[in-house]
């Protein structure tokens, strides 16, 4: 599996850079001496793209770019940029340019200039998409080909403009979450859970959850503001999860978020709860590396997503056709006389058990099921199989090991979850898997995911637990991504949608 990293260029990269220079600029390449001067000069910053693969040790330089900025000047110049011909169409040129823009800003430049060949529309388009504008044309500048140079300029947006403070509200199930982010930086993430109130019912009761949201709203917001050490006036935008989830619960968050937005005179972004789980990763990595497969597992959802772009392209590959995985844990825990919530209890008891003691069925994994439901899940049959197995054991008067049943059940759930997620990665040639949702706390799920991802060359991402379980920070993070991409705010008339599809990342 391949991975591309951008890092400052070193003099040791010179030979590799010269090879690319000849490849990219056949008729007008720089000499090695000029390139050496560029790399070592005090007023230039050079970066390379290093490709590493699991198949071979070390790295290979597949792209480079340089920026020049003189001390005291507010102007900077793109000196050169090149990507190996076989590695184009992977967004590496864009990443290098974004690196140069960030570097120019860091050095105090307010403008960046560049020259581009008039016969290279692909490059011009890339620069335009980054905000560059054409300001001049130099006739027959590139020799010996006699091609015109187009001069482009970008006025660098101030860093403060692209780091909005966003407050996010999450109320889709039994957690009232308020999170505050500045751009991709987490400022606060406060979660108030009504889990205890549901315990005696053995599962989340929608009306109990909705009542708890209303009660938790004010204290949770105040705590989040205190944690972030900001006042509401400093918030630039409000984000709220408007689905999917429990309708009555979602509506509490939607009503609250709208009133905050109107009261503060700030824009509001209605975002998808499930895509929010994926967006949580920007708070740890600064971005969500794409494409990625995302496996979201909680008491309410079991979904497999293909994310090509966090704010533009999310596809649902499959989901549970009956119970969510977390729900299955709760029900089997009750059957075994364990407490609610079932996940942690089964995890605890299973530690003493043999996962191979009983071979419970793996839902939707038979060849005929795999045709229609390759990425779908089913846990209802498994839950019933456990119940029947326990009944038979009880009726025959045999002693049986609860830890063995718990471990074998857990193994069946985890096996199906991870197998299907890894299949999705391999089928779509996506070398990354992101886990999200409360069930990610399950120790065995993390272990098996780590083992099988490593065996298949897949990079596994598991954000910190407070960012995996339902939370407001992930909603704020996704909202901030929309703000930074210049997206229009949502119209105030949006509603809560309990079955909001993942393709609706933002409700307009």
């Amino acid at each position, binding site marked *: 599996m391949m991975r591309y990293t951008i890092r400052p260029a070193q003099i040791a990269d010179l030979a590799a850079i010269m090879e690319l220079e000849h490849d990219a600029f056949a008729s007008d390449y720089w000499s090695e001496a000029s390139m050496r001067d560029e790399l070592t000069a005090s007023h230039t910053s050079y970066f390379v793209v290093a490709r590493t693969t699991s198949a071979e040790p070390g790295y290979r330089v597949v792209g480079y770019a340089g920026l020049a900025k003189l001390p005291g000047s507010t102007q900077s110049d793109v000196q050169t940029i090149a990507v190996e011909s076989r590695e184009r169409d992977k967004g590496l040129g864009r990443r290098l340019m974004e690196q140069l823009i960030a570097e120019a800003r860091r050095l105090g430049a307010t403008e960046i200039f560049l020259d581009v060949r008039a016969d290279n529309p692909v490059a011009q388009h890339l620069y335009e998409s980054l905000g560059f504008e054409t300001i001049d044309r130099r006739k027959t500048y590139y020799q010996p080909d006699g091609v015109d140079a187009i001069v482009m300029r970008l006025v660098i947006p101030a860093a403060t403009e692209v780091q909005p403070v966003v407050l996010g509200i999450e109320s889709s199930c039994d957690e009232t979450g308020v999170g505050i982010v500045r751009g991709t930086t987490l400022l606060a993430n406060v979660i108030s859970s009504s889990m205890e109130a549901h315990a*005696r*019912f*053995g599962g989340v*009761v929608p*009306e*109990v959850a*909705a*009542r708890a*949201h*209303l*009660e938790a*709203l*004010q204290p949770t*917001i*105040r705590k989040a503001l205190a944690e972030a050490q900001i006042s*509401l006036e400093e918030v630039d935008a409000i984000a709220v999860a408007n689905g999917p989830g429990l*309708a*009555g619960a*979602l*509506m*509490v*968050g*939607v*009503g*609250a*978020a*709208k*009133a*905050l*937005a*109107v*009261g*503060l*005179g700030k824009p*509001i972004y209605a975002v998808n709860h499930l895509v929010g789980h994926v967006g949580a990763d920007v708070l740890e990595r600064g971005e969500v590396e794409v494409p990625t497969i995302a496996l979201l597992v909680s008491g309410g959802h079991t979904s497999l997503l293909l994310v090509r772009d966090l704010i533009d392209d999310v596809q649902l590959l499959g989901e549970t056709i009956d119970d969510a995985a977390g729900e299955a844990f709760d*029900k089997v825990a*009750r*059957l075994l*006389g364990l407490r609610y919530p079932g996940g942690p209890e089964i995890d605890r008891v299973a530690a003493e058990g043999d996962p191979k003691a009983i071979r419970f069925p793996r839902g939707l994994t038979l060849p005929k099921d795999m045709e229609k439901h390759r990425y779908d899940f089913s846990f209802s049959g498994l*839950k*019933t199989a456990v*119940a*029947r197995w*326990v*009944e*038979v054991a*009880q*009726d025959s008067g045999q002693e049986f090991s609860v830890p063995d049943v718990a471990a074998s059940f857990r193994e069946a759930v985890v096996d199906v979850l991870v197998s299907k997620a890894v299949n999705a990665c391999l089928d779509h040639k996506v070398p990354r898997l992101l886990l999200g949702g409360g069930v990610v706390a399950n120790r065995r799920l993390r272990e098996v995911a780590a083992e099988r991802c490593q065996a298949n060359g897949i990079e596994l991402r598991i954000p910190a637990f407070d960012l995996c379980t339902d939370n407001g920070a992930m909603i704020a993070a996704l909202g901030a991504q929309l703000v930074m991409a210049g997206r229009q705010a949502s119209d*105030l*008339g*949006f*509603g*809560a949608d309990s079955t909001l599809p993942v393709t609706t990342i933002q409700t307009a």
Partner: protein
Amino acid sequence: MALILAVDTTAGTSVALLRDDRVLAEFGHDSGVKHAELIGSAIHEVFERTGVRPQALDAVVVGRGPALFTGLRVGIAAGLMFAEAVGAKLIGAVSHDAIALELYSSDGSLPGLPLLITTDARRGEVYWALYGGLEDAGIPVVLAGPGVGKHAQVVVALEAEFGSFTERTGGASAQWVARLAARQMIAGVASEDTTALYLRAPDAVMPKPNQQFGKRVSG
């Protein structure tokens, strides 16, 4: 002089901006299911139309019900957060009290008489409260309630205790919620309690001990 925003979602979505007793702007929509959709624009509109700055508000009043849960919560949540955003005082008012105030104030045939206010509670029941006119401060006197029950049973029980009364059914409007709160503020009896008046336990089935799944097929 008090500038008050009132939000009541016990029937439709009702929002009003008042200076003392005078309505500056009002938004009303009688849909009983579109509260979450409407609430943002409703609040936005009353400020937009009047040019009043939200930060100038003295108080935000929310109708606490009793009412059907889902819609009720949207209004209370919005009122709570609006007060938080603009730094206004937060007040809770019983929505049936506001209905009583409206009827006593606008229906000349009623003053003095005991008045039963009922609203639909579904499942063959009503939310109710019984009033005995207005006191000196112009605030309805609560004789009994608010409660929830079968209409016929409620009437029989109340007649046994209070004698005859007039009955009206209705829905609360935000402007009367605001007027009620304004009078309560002047009289020093306004309440900061904004908890929802559900009057019913959540619908939830307790699992049977050792409950298993479906019917047994063996044993």
